[in-house]
């Protein structure tokens, strides 16, 4: 049997589990080793070590009232809780708690799609609703709306939004937290709060206007531990008449500067609506010379051009994005984009896919880049280990955020390539993804293993990347629980004033410190001396 939470006696723990059974039923309290292991982080960089974050039990309520009952018992016994929605965000910790010994509050059973309005293009969902669920619901009922799905699409709308995940369609929808409108939260005291217009009981605009009246507090419930979110509204995208996916390639290393500047300008002007993905085909794969140049951290443009000349003509950079809307509008947007980029010598344009909606089931299956069309997929899996490379157990995402400037992307690629090589790792493939309107996120895969020696190296690499990138002006936007303390340290302006504010809020909102202790390094007063 798993150990009880720190500071809770075995007797009290068993008593608490019986009380939890009284709230949710015996079938929905999980305390056997086999069941609790389901909440283990299979990609943990601490796998099998004493510090690995493990749950003590799990409880699966299916209503707001049951969540309140769980919270009440947690306050009574001092049980740390760790709410999850679907718990499948594997590269950021999965379902494992930030604080070992926590009782996972598994909200998978709260999987009701409470409302979808085709007229208003909104939905209201519970935390267990996955992108799969919502997509299927819209498609089965022939509702001409799109979700903006995370990729892979097995996660939940609420969990991904609260962790500030991103998607691929129009800017109004692909910042998943920004696309929400109204939430319901069970506070650590057990009180239920609704935000925005939803706080006005008769409001007809709960999913239409975000702010309501008075201070807008929704943001404090993201990447935090101030309550258990039990409902959220979201805005959905109207299915367009058509879509055109395109690719723009440029031949030289420094071409990325005008490429990104121009595409960013077009995004800001709403000419390019979708997420723009900028990658280097030349730096993909495992060519030893390419990896040597990346690992050197300072290869010159001339060295890269020589390599490019020997590499069979692959373009140095490629951008891909999608237009959505009426066909004649798309044609005009695409032509304008080409006109704006035509000044880059050697630029090439390609139309890679076009669709007219709605799609048949057969057409859906044939879509290569599903997430760009609101279709959840599992395509991302299987693209992990490089052919011939060492077997990987998994990876964490390292996600620094940079300005949308090509020279920053080059500098970041140089820096991280050397950091990987210095620690004995193959440099990660890097792309700059413009999820948000004014930044790029540059995802790097940092491999994790099932042995302590390799994981020690991986943790050292991760720490190096977090600190080194922050020092260069590229802090991360999101981070695995094992590194949340480190991450918050890089947001330490004025001797950690932001962190102190977070913990001041924690003390006020969660006086007994029961909800997700340690998440994003926000610790309740009673545990501050024991923080990881």
């Amino acid at each position: 049997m798993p150990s009880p939470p720190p500071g809770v006696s075995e007797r009290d723990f068993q008593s608490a589990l019986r009380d939890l059974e009284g709230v949710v039923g015996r079938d929905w309290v999980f305390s056997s080793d086999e069941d609790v292991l389901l909440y283990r982080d299979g990609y943990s960089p601490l796998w099998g070590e004493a510090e690995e974050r493990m749950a003590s039990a799990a409880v699966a309520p299916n209503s707001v009232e049951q969540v309140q009952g769980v919270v009440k018992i947690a306050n009574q016994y001092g049980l740390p809780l760790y709410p999850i929605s679907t718990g499948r965000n594997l590269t950021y910790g999965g379902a494992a708690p930030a604080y070992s010994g926590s009782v996972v509050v598994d909200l998978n059973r709260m999987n009701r799609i409470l409302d979808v309005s085709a007229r208003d293009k909104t939905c209201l969902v519970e935390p267990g609703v996955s992108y799969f669920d919502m997509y299927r619901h819209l498609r089965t009922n022939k509702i001409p709306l799109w979700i903006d799905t995370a990729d892979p699409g097995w996660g939940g709308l609420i969990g991904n939004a609260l962790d500030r995940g991103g998607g691929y369609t129009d800017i109004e929808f692909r910042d998943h937290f920004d696309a929400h409108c109204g939430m319901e939260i069970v506070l650590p005291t057990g009180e239920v709060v609704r935000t925005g217009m939803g706080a006005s009981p008769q409001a007809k605009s709960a999913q239409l206007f975000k702010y309501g009246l008075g201070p807008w507090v929704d943001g404090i419930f993201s990447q935090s531990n101030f309550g258990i979110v039990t409902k959220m509204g979201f805005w959905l995208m109207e299915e367009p008449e058509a879509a055109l996916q395109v690719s723009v390639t440029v031949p030289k290393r420094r071409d990325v500067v005008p490429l990104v500047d121009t595409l960013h300008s077009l995004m800001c002007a709403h000419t390019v609506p979708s997420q723009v993905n900028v990658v280097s085909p030349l730096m993909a794969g495992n060519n030893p010379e390419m990896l040597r140049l990346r690992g050197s951290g300072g290869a010159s443009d001339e060295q890269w051009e020589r390599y490019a000349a020997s590499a069979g003509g692959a373009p140095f950079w490629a951008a891909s994005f999608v237009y959505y809307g009426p066909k004649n509008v798309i044609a005009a947007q695409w032509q304008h984009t080409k006109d704006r980029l035509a000044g880059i010598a050697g630029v090439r344009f390609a139309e890679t896919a076009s669709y007219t909606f709605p799609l048949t089931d057969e057409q859906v299956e044939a879509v290569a880049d599903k997430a760009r069309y609101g279709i959840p997929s599992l395509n991302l899996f299987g693209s992990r280990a490089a052919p011939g490379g060492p077997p990987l157990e998994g990876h964490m995402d390292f996600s620094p955020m940079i300005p949308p400037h090509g020279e920053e992307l080059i500098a970041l690629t140089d820096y991280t390539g050397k950091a990987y090589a210095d620690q004995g790792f193959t440099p990660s493939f890097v792309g700059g993804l413009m999820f948000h309107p004014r930044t790029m996120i540059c995802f790097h895969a940092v491999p994790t293993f099932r042995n302590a020696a390799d994981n020690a190296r991986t943790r050292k690499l991760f720490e190096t990347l977090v600190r080194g990138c922050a020092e260069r002006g590229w802090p991360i936007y999101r981070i695995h629980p094992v590194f949340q303390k480190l991450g918050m340290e890089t947001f330490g302006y004025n001797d950690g004033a932001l962190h102190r504010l977070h913990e001041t809020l924690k003390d006020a909102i969660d006086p007994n410190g029961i909800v997700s202790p340690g998440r994003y390094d926000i610790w309740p007063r009673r545990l501050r001396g024991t923080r990881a």
Partner: protein
Amino acid sequence: VNRRIFVQNTALVATGFSAWGRAHAAPGGAPDLNGGAAVALVDRSLPGAARFAADARARGVRTLEFARDAADLWMREIEPRLRAGPVAIAGRTSAATAFCVELLARDYGARIVQRTEQGEAVTFVISQSPGQRAALAPAAVRAQWSHSHA
């Protein structure tokens, strides 16, 4: 990613679908792993897929073919079947797909009970077992979905 099997009682078998079929096929009919329905999930892009699919069909098992991404089949076929009641899922897929399907099926109390790797393909059986964790998404809960689509 392809070694993540949490379930401690997973039994690895060294043989593929044929052995599975011999061990579990009901006399004169479809395989019956758990007193319920069975489906076969086949990634047609992998070696041996055609033989596996033909073998499954010959045993009367509903055979679902896809190429690389099983998400659509999960949404349209597998998850509704798991929601409706016990079902055994035999598969010949990539290790990544096997991992994904197993993780998704956990919410219905199902676990991998057989698994073997053959080059880039994995042959597996996912099934529900008595005493395992119950389903997290019973039909009664799903049935409460709203139909207000004004």
